[in-house]
């Protein structure tokens, strides 16, 4: 066996991940309250979404504030196939992922030459144009959206009336898969290419890194996973409209856990989602009902405090301390 500290750290990571999945999988034994289960599902979903966002924006350094486009694509493809053609969501979700990956490649092809804020604003306006088009597309329900008929519990149709648990375990699996994808990427040559492209694209190019193709791959992978999340969300809430799956807020909500947890780190999105989503939901349920905007004030202060207090993210801060402590 090897004693290479790097390989040891990799092995530790995978053991920790399996341990975390096991512990989370046992949670429903103790948590029977439907509201709390709901929060758990959302937390896991955002962990997965933020992990997907992190692939393009954290590892590859292409900050996207338009991921709502891919989320909405996943939701709409899944539900259009389901409600109009009777295709089960099990096929709809990967189909949505593929459509989103194609869109991401089509967006990336012209836009990856843009730098900094020009790129960020391009991602915002493309997502916003998609949102406006969905608002006007009658076949897809336009502004009314799509109501997904739920008649009985069914694994084949992936819909459940009473229990949240099937959604919970799907979300857990989804979060683990997104983590695993990132874990495998970290060690692949892609990750080295992305890091090189992020730090100095011209230098990387001159050393033979195909910067453009590696960005395209990051975009397609990130969009695919995000869209699967969109399809899942649509099944989970069984109603979608452009505002609820394609609004600009979604793009920020997906980015926030990764930024809070640690941009471009393996554990950042999961840690960030684990803290941020329960806090958001608690604030909303305790202060949101008043209609007085208290939930917004608390949430906004939270975001500001996190951004200013922990600029390198929680994971970044922890590893920095650990590195300092070492001889």
């Amino acid at each position: 066996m090897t004693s290479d500290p790097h390989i040891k750290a990799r092995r530790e990571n995978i053991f920790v991940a399996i341990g975390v999945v096991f512990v989370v999988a046992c949670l429903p034994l103790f948590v029977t309250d439907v509201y709390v289960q709901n929060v758990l599902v959302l937390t896991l979903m955002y962990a997965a979404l933020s992990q997907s966002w992190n692939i393009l924006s954290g590892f590859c350094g292409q900050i996207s504030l338009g991921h709502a486009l891919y989320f909405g694509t996943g939701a709409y493809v899944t539900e259009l196939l389901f409600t109009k053609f009777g295709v089960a969501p099990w096929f709809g979700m990967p189909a949505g992922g593929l459509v989103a990956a194609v869109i991401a490649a089509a967006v990336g092809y012209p836009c990856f030459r843009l730098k900094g804020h020009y790129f960020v604003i391009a991602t915002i306006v493309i997502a916003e144009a998609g949102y406006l088009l969905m608002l006007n597309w009658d076949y897809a329900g336009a502004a009314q959206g799509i109501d997904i008929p739920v008649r009985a519990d069914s694994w084949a149709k992936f819909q459940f009336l009473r229990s949240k648990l099937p959604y919970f375990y799907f979300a857990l699996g989804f979060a683990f898969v997104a983590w695993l994808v990132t874990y495998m990427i970290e060690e692949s040559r892609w990750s080295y290419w992305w890091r090189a492209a992020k730090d100095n694209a011209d230098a990387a190019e001159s050393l033979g890194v195909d910067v453009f193709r590696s960005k395209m791959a990051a975009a397609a992978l990130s969009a695919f996973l995000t869209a699967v999340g969109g399809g899942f969300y649509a099944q989970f809430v069984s109603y979608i409209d452009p505002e609820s799956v394609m609004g600009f807020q979604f793009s920020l909500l997906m980015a926030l856990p990764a930024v809070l947890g640690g941009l471009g780190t393996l554990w950042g999105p999961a840690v960030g989602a684990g803290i941020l989503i329960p806090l958001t939901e608690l604030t909303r349920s305790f202060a949101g009902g008043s209609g007085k905007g208290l939930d917004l004030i608390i949430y906004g202060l939270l975001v500001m405090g996190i951004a200013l207090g922990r600029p390198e993210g929680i994971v970044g801060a922890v590893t920095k301390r650990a590195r300092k402590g070492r001889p």
Partner: protein
Amino acid sequence: MTAQAVAQSLVSGLLMGLIYALVAAGLALVFGLMNVVNFAHGEFLMTAMYAAFGLFVAVSLDPLLAAPFVAAAMFIFGSVVYLGVVRFAMSASANAGMVQIFATFGLGVVMRGLAQLLFTPNYRSIPHSWLGGRTMQIAGVYLPAPQLAGACVSLATFGALWLIINRTDFGRALEATREDSGAVALVGIDRKRIFALGWGLGAALVGLAGAVLAIFFYIYPDVGASFSLIAYVTVALGGFGSVFGAFAAGILVGLVEAGSALVLPASLKYVGVYALYLLVVLVRPRGLFGSL
């Protein structure tokens, strides 16, 4: 489509474009000065609109007369935001870009929450202002008085801005800081002070825009969202770092929006504006007048 309709939409687009330019001016100034995008820009506008509304309700001051007072109040507010929030975001040790985005975004959310708390989510409007609802007619083309006033305020403001930047010591310090914020310290310019004044001036500009918009637009906590994306697009289209690029881009945005409304369903008119942005930056990745 008659020539009349085209002329009408050309004129409406021009007026609205000048107002967009005014809304974007502060954002462009602050970005040019210190490379920070204020993601609470829409909420700054919303605050200014409520300030104009408040002055009307409290002392029945017409929004047009209130504009200078709103601008002065926003000047102070902008400086305070710089000193209290942005200063710290800029000195972040890592991910400065994301920290700035989320610090200002969080601030915007707080401002929206405060607006809801203080004024409820209801839509407000200023009834019976001098210009509200009045129109002029020239050669068959209707000119709504509030938009006309907004366009004039915009022209006057950009004129004043040109004088400030080119003819005053403060303006020269602003330009010098923009070009090399490290080197200005050597000639005795206090960078932090210039940044604080820059934020104040940026907020004052959006204050003028808010006072003008309050004449003819509904006032509600989320009103900023309808303008902020257009403002970002305007600034980027003009080219980051160029205040007068934003002026030209604002007019272009207004014209394209009006033109799109002629050929597309009204709810899709912004798609034309977004397409314009993409077309321009794909051909010219630094915007119309931006410097690299």
